[in-house]
């Protein structure tokens, strides 16, 4: 395997994840958002599998398989069920200032390049690029969590953020398996929590718009 090709494939996959993050920011339809999230996780699975191949680390294949099965298939399916059951699947979220958000996102990508590339100058180029782009994905996830008001899209944003961290973990060569299992596990738990909360929120407010929650600030009673 020539170094150039393995690098450029890894770079491409990581870049596609960044692109998918941008698409999530841009997407205002909930069902489409979940589709993009699934694509995001799918690219992550490919990227992790590629790292497994390049690093010759078979345990990463397991991570890739978990990612593929759980994050790219099961989770989006479950989210889709939730929004269908809550009657949100046709809902269009009022996302204001997409243009500005996207510009801010591009700024964040530039920031992460600026921060991470000099710092990781001594690391393996493969690790270096994936970690750098992973930081971009993390920051974009944060940005989306800040700009979205809908509980489901906040969850989607959080999951994309987790994907970014998974990418970084896979790129850090020889990182013990502990972390990968834990991430999958914690996601499972996280999802349970999320599911329960969504249903409860629906039950209490008839809306999954987080703004409805803000009205109940404990101070003003």
């Amino acid at each position, binding site marked *: 395997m020539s170094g150039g090709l393995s690098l450029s494939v890894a770079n491409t996959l990581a870049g596609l994840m960044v692109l998918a993050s941008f698409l999530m920011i841009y997407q205002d339809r909930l069902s489409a958002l979940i589709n993009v999230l699934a694509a995001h996780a799918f690219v992550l699975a490919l990227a992790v599998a590629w790292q497994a191949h390049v690093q010759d680390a078979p345990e990463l294949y397991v991570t890739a398989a978990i990612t593929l099965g759980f994050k790219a298939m099961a989770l989006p399916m479950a989210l889709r069920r939730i929004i269908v059951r809550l009657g949100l699947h046709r809902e269009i979220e009022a996302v204001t200032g997409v243009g500005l958000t996207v510009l801010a996102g591009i700024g964040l990508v530039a920031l992460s390049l600026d*921060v*991470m590339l*000099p*710092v*990781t100058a*001594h*690391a393996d180029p493969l*690790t270096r690029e994936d*970690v750098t782009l*992973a*930081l971009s994905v*993390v920051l974009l996830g*944060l940005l989306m*969590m800040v700009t979205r008001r809908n*509980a489901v899209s*906040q969850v989607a944003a*959080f999951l994309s*953020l*987790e994907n970014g*961290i998974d990418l*970084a*973990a896979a790129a*850090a*060569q*020889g*990182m*013990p398996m*502990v*972390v990968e299992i*834990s*991430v999958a*596990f*914690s996601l499972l*738990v*996280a999802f349970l*929590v*999320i599911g329960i*909360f969504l249903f*409860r*929120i629906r039950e*209490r*407010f008839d809306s999954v718009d*987080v703004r409805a*929650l*803000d009205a*109940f*600030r*404990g*101070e003003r*009673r």
Partner: protein
Amino acid sequence: MIALAGILGAPLIGAALLAAIPGYRLSARCNVLASLVAFAAALLLLHHRPQAGRFMLVDDLNVVFIVLSTFVGFTTSLFSASYIGHELATLRLTPAYLRFYHAMYQLMMFGMNLALVSNNIGLMWVAVELATLSTVMMVGIYRTHEALEAAWKYFILGSVGIALALFGTILVYLAARPVVGGGLDGMAWTVLLMHAAGFDPALLDVAFVFLLLGYGTKVGLAPMHAWLPDAHAEGPTPISAVLSGLLLNVALYALLRFKMLLAACPGGIAPGPLMIALGLASLLFASLMLYRRRDIKRLFAYSSIEHMGIIVFAFGMAGPLGNFAGLLQMVMHSLTKSAIFFSVGHVAQVKGTQRIAEMGGLTESHPLLGWGLVAGVAAIAGMPPFGVFTSEFLVISSTFARAPLLAVLLVLGLLLALGALLLRLSSVAFGPVRGGTGPTGASFVPMFAHLALVLVAGIYLPAPLVAWFQHIAALLG
């Protein structure tokens, strides 16, 4: 090894059992028992420490945290037994939720203990996440509008924080890998600390910023604190007590470990200024916010932010005296704040409200409870004979010697907080009686035990304890 097994096993077995036990009385007792076993095991650690393994580590630093954590966990379980009985009687909780509550309580204890004894930065991260998730579930347990809002906010902010912390953890591993090689060694505290001098300082700097933001969210530092007041105010009061008394400490412990790592790496940035800035911001912000609180649990939640600010500030100042003061302040705050929440829990139950405006004359209607609260607030506000005074005095005096300007700001924040707390206290504890006057039916043992400890610490600190803390302070650098 027995001690470690007790610390980790008792809560884990307890959680499994409590999920199965239906009756309220039996499960409350089991809860107390499991906490007691964990506390006893922690005391064993004081005498005999197991060798550091690949996953577990017990050293001078975390023993303090472990003993404190299991002790407060135990007293809180005592308080919880009487508190939860009342909640059940007033139908705020159903028996099914109660079972869930007890299982989650032990799961949280397990997560915190695991985080404290783990020798692996990845394992520690998992444990902190576990503790967080279990507290999220408990904060939302009442299922009111406010409780759900609080739990959601806590969950989202906590998850973001924990995600950033994981990113920082990965970066630390990346920094360590060229020096110590891959695999488990690259994540073990003992190994990392030994080789920290060879790490790439720039990478470690970036990692620390992520860790500070990530675990700092859990500590409740100022710009990331938004979850804390809500989570404290809307969950059951025993959870407020352990949140303030324990969970914040666990996150702080993680920060301190990483700070040690950074300090051991010569080319790295000094973590002090960052921590000082965040700590001071938290202190000043929370002190000002104290004035406009109308909810009594929220009031003390902001007071927790304020104190975490002081503690982080003290550790940021570093040096033997700064670290010593920070450590002492942390212990005193844990004890005092949980005592306050114990009394606040009963106050809210007898008065039937958490609104400060609707309660008054507590010392007249419920003298024991009222004076307990007065003592607790006096202690947390830093009034003399209590231990918090000692530690705050140490923080201030050590700061005056090195950075007078910062010390002025520190004193300003403390005075502001003092004023706000006394103002609120006077309306709750004294004056005409307002709100319910029914019997409390509560056990005051945990509250007064904590207050007595704080009082004793304020008057006389035993020499071995001082020596021990000084040793840790030197370790922290």
